[in-house]
Structure formats: C-alpha cells, structure tokens
C-alpha cells in the first residue's frame, strides 16, 4: 500500500476514534432555554443520548425530582418498574418523553409545565441507560448509594439464601 494511502487510513482511523470520545464526553453546560412549557419534544430524537454528562444529569434529576418516589431505583413500587422489556406506553425516546411531559393515565403526573425540555431528555436518557440502551462507556456502573443493580442483588441473595 502506498504511504499516502497508509497515512490517509491512519488519519481516518484517528478521527473516528476521536469522534467517539468527543461525542461521549461532551459537556454542554448551557442549554438553550425554550420559551414555553414543553409537552411535546421539539426534536425527534434524544439529543442527550450517548452523552455521559447528560446521562449523569438524568440520574441526578431522577433522584432530585423524586421519580424514585414511585418508581424506586427502576424496580417500581407505586409506579411500574422502569427496567423492563415491554413498555406500556412505548420505550422509544420520544414516547418516554411524552410519558414524562404529558403524564399517563393511572397516576403518572404531567411534568412538562415544570421540568424544562432539556432535562426531560436527560431523564429519558437515564431511564434508557437503566435498560442498557445507552453505550456502556457513557453509563456509570454503580452509584454512591446502596447497591441497586438488580442482577447484583439477585446474585447476592442467591449466595446468602436471603
């Protein structure tokens, strides 16, 4: 292979590798405030998907806005679990956005008039990460709380018989 071709391939490979990291590690600290309460998403796809900072913000907001009050850490309680394969109202990002923003029958409140759009997308990204639908390199393996990973808890129970 000629040396120019080699250089070209090397350059493309480096750029690809760079773009993966650059995409995942974005810190977009200053969102564009939208001018209204947000009941339908402005964008079709989740702008927060695949970005570690956004997923982390989604995790923080999940706790701060007390989603865990009904959904626990994904296992559900008063509300349905959020770690699952079949979603009542759809598990795609846009559908999750609508569930959060407009609410759903049987008790899910509408948050779109309080939570800004960009934060709803962050929560959507986090919920999808609970279901391993976000890149694992952008998803934290655990949080600084008691162990909540269902697989770990199941395994621990199997070991100790509790």
């Amino acid at each position, binding site marked *: 292979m000629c040396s120019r071709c080699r250089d070209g391939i090397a350059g493309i490979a480096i750029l690809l590798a760079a773009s993966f990291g*650059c995409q*995942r590690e974005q810190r977009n600290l200053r969102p564009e405030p939208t001018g209204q309460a947000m009941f339908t998403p402005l964008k079709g796809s989740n702008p927060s998907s695949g970005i570690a900072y956004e997923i982390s913000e989604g995790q923080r907001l999940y706790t701060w806005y007390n989603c865990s009050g009904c959904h626990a850490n994904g296992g559900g309680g008063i509300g349905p679990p959020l770690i699952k394969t079949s979603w009542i109202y759809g598990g795609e990002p846009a559908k999750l956005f609508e569930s959060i923003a407009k609410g759903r029958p049987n008790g899910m409140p509408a948050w779109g008039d309080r939570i800004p759009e960009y934060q709803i997308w962050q929560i959507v990204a986090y919920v999808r990460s609970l279901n391993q639908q976000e890149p694992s390199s952008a998803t934290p393996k655990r949080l600084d709380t008691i162990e909540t990973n269902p697989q770990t808890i199941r395994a621990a129970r199997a070991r100790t018989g509790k």
Partner: protein
Amino acid sequence: MIPLVETSRELDEEQERGTLERAWRHPGGFVGWCSYTTHQAIGMRYIVTAFLFLLAGGVEALLMRLQLARPENGFLGPDRYNQIFTTHGSTMMFLFAVPMMEGMGIYLVPLMLGTRNVAFPRLNAFGYWMYLIGGLFLYWGVFTNTAPDVGWFAYPPLSGPQFGIGKRVDFWAQMITFTEISALCVATELIATILKMRAPGMSLNRIPLFCWAMLVQSFMVIFAMPAVMLASNIFLLTDRTVGTHFTNPAEGGDPLLYQHVFWFFGHPEVYIIFIPALGMVSSIVDTHTRRAIFGYPAMVLSMAATGFIGFGLWVHHMFATGLPQIGEAYFTAASMMIAITSGVQIFCWLATMWSGRIRMTAAMHFVFGFVAIFVLGGLTGVMLASIPIDLQVHDTFFVVAHFHYVLIGGALFPLFGAFHHWFPKFTGRMIGETAGKATFWLLFTGFNLTFFPMHILGLKGMTRRIYTYQPEMGWGPANLLASVGAFVILFGGLLFLANVIRSRRHGLPAGADPWASGTLEWAADSPPANYNFVYLPVVPGRYPLWTDPKQRGLVTGVRADRREVLVTTIMDAAPHHRYPLPGPSIWPLLTAAGVSAGLIWAVYQFSGYYPAIALGTAGLIGWFWPRTPAGDER
C-alpha cells in the same frame, strides 16, 4: 577513549574493539530500531520522550497562567480548565519527572559502574514501550475531550462512578498502570545492575553517589508503586468499571481509604523524583569543584534515611480530614525530621564547595540555583508540617508554591545542570556555556517571578484548582506577575532547546573527559560506544580517573565476540562469573503491544484484562524462548 591504564601486557585494543563493535552492533531498519536493547539507546529514548512530555506539561501550565492572569477571565471555561490542570499535574508527575530520572539512570549507571549494559536489557526495552504507550494513551484522551478532570490525585467520590462522568478518570487510572509497570521494570534492573554488575574493586563504599541515589530510588519505587496501582486500579478503576464498593460508604467503603493508599505512594513519589537529582548534584559538584564530595558516608546514609523516612509522612497530605490528633502529631514530627536528612546533604555540598575550587560552568549555576530554590521550598515544607499552619494553607496556592519550589528547585534545576554537565558525554560536543548560563538566569528569574507570589496568594486565601476568582479579592496583581514569570520560563526553555540544537551541530568536539572528572563514565567515548568500554575497568577508589593510573586495572578474559558482562559480588565487587546478555529483540515491543491492547480494552470493559494476560503470556513465551547466545553459533 582515555587509556585507562598502562600495562606491560600486550593488549590488542584495536582487535578487541572491532570484535566488540560486531557483537554490539545495532540492527538496521525500522524493526531493528524497535529491537534495540542497549542502555544508551533506551536511556536516551526515555530522556527525549520525557522532555517532550515536559514541554506538553509546560504548555498546559501556560494555558492555566493565561486564564488566571486576570480575574473573571474568559479564556478557559471550568471544564477545560479542570482538564488542563489535571493533565498538567499527571503529565509532570507520571510522564515527565519519574521517567526522566529513570532515563538518566539507565543511561549513566552502567557507565559509572564500569559495565556494558543494565542487568535485564529486554526488560529495559519493555519498560520504555509501556511508558511510551501509556503516555500516548493519556494524550489520545486529551485530544478526544477525555482528559481527566478530577485533579492529579483524583479523590473519590469526585472521581468515582457517580461524579466522575464518562471515561476521563478511567484513562487516568489506566495511564498509571502503564507508567508504574514501566517504573517497576526500571527499578528492578537498576537494583540488579548496581548490586551485581559493578567493576571489580568498586566495593559498596566506592559506588558513585549518583548510583547510590538510583539504588535508593529503585527500592522506593518497588515499595511505593504498588500502592498507587492498588488505589487507582483496584479501588478506583474497578469501582468504576465493575461496580465494586471500595469507596462507597453506603456499602461499607470509605473515600479516605483511597486517600491513605494514594498518599502512601504519593509522598514517596516526590522523593523518587528528588533523590536521583541529589545524585546528579553530587556528580556535578565533585567535578566542578575538583574535589571529592565531602562526607561520603553521611551522604549515602542521609539518602537512604530520606528514602526510609519518606514512607512515614503520608498523612501530612490529610491533616484536614479530621484524623485523631495524636496520630497527626507523629506525622508532624516525621515530616520535620526529613528536613534533617536533606539538610545533611546540603551541608556536605556546601562544605565541598567551601573547600574546593569552583569552576562556574553552566552546570554549576544550576546547582547554585538548586540550593537556593530547594532550600526555600524545604523550609516552607517545614511550615506545612505544622498542623495549625497547614490547616490554613493546605489546598491554597501556598502549597502550589511549596511543591514547585521543591520539585522544580530540587529536581528540575539539577536536571538542567545534568544536561549541561553530561551533554558532552551524550553527544560528543560541548554545549554553549554562555547560552547555558543565560538559560539558567531566565529559568531562575522566571521561576521566582512565577512562584514566589503564590506564597502570598495562598496566605491571602486563594485556594487551588479554581478556574477564576473575583476582582475584589485582591489576587489580581500577584496572579498577573506569576503569569508574566511563566513566559520568562518559556523563553528560558526555548533558549535551552536552541542551545541544544545548535551545540549538537556546531559545538566544540568534546573528547572523552572535557571536565577532568573523576568517575568512570568519563573514560568511555563521547558518545559512548554500544559496549561502553573496550576493556572493563578495575577500580581502586571512589574517583577512578583521579587516581594514579598505575593503580588502576583492566579486566581481560571477558568475551568480546558476544554481549558478555562481568557479574561481581555485592559487598566487594569481586568478580564472580561472566554472563551473556541478550542481543536485540523485538519481543519486548510485541509483549508491550499485546499487554497494552488488553489494558486499553480494560478501560471500557473489565474483561479486557484477559486478553492482556493472554497476549502478555504469548509475548513472554517468545521473549524467553531458548536461543543460543549471540556469538556462540558455530
């Protein structure tokens, strides 16, 4: 080469030299270049690579100083600034300081000991490749927005899985694996070389002080580096990639556990950087005052004591964490005690200078600068050892000033002195003395302009690691002065580079011993041949080249047609046996590449360690595959 000795026996030096040339010849081509196992080549690779990382760290420093020059400056945002100061610290500590000292050791120790190579040449090459790959790995992160942003010591929970967002901290933690493997390789081979491969007659009390320094440092590396691998890899990296709970209080872990284990490494780390510099200063001082270093036994014992006591100080980095006061007081005492051992070194050098005939070369300028700057830094260290004072100035710019005074003064200035001192040996040409002295004055002035005001800033309450500050705090003028000083340092560095480049081409040819020095490295060619000496020397005293030639000797009977060295006893360096060293080999690079691929994979998935082990094992099989020593084939 200086004829070491006049003998009555007929020695055909020309024939011996020719045979050695053939046995020690470097292989050609790119693959051959990757296969070098001679210590001069690998030492120089370490030195050049570490110097490039020094420049990278310097760029990061200049960026920081540009941001802090004015209050509420908008040059760098918080995220970028956090990445830059973390990368600056990590680069300087892991990618510049320790590898540079090791590179100087790898290059100079076999020459000073009168042998032909380090004890494990292929391990030497492997260590370098691991270091290079680790450094490039971190900087690949830097250029893909994945530079670590949690400080060079990366305390959890900030660096933990919840708050250390993304892969940045994982890159940092794995970079440490690379550099610590490299450091352990170098430490192992230096200890073996210094203890077992000295020239006959070089008993323990005749070893050059630089070699003693490298011996102490190597032992320190072996005891300290595993601690940082434990902290960064086992605690932090597995918490982040596997989900363990070492630092998670909710499940029984503790963030302070990380701090203890990290600083158990972190404090000896600074002595690992500093002690080789002490050895360099001794080499420069004895040559350029034209007398032996005063108080050799005190110098050796104080270096060893520094190394030993250095392991008992680590809690002084944690005085603010609320540990029991009685325990903390012990660490105050130990932290002050170590000033005694460093003080003894300074006093002995002063005594040497007092009673010697000082030749104010550029190298000696750097030694004087070292004494001034390092002593000031050491004294602020005594202040920091006091708990009440530390609780006020900890985590402020006072500490930044302190450690730059002791690290730049105590390691960088001796290093630059060493560059000017050994440049003739490395390159065969004299370095420009006037430019060297101008370099010193630029670096000295710029350094003090930059870092002295930081003492004041710390006392005025300016905390570390802040990307900006408010105008009404009154910190603006001192920060501006510090930023100006940083650019003066830059000019000093550029002048040094220009001097090196020019002197390599146009400097006066140096000959083997331009300084009329006393130690063995000056008996080899400039630059040394791959085999260092045609005949290995026999050593009658601490300064072989200053003794009567009639008392020196040569070793005959070591084979020249293969890469053979003489192994001697530990205490008296009596010849014990001859040993064939391996020739050039590509296996260190292949093994390093395989292990590195696995380690990089492990940053993303823990299972990456399995290919690391598998590929490493495969590499080692090729490495150790039995083959006839070069020269024995018939």
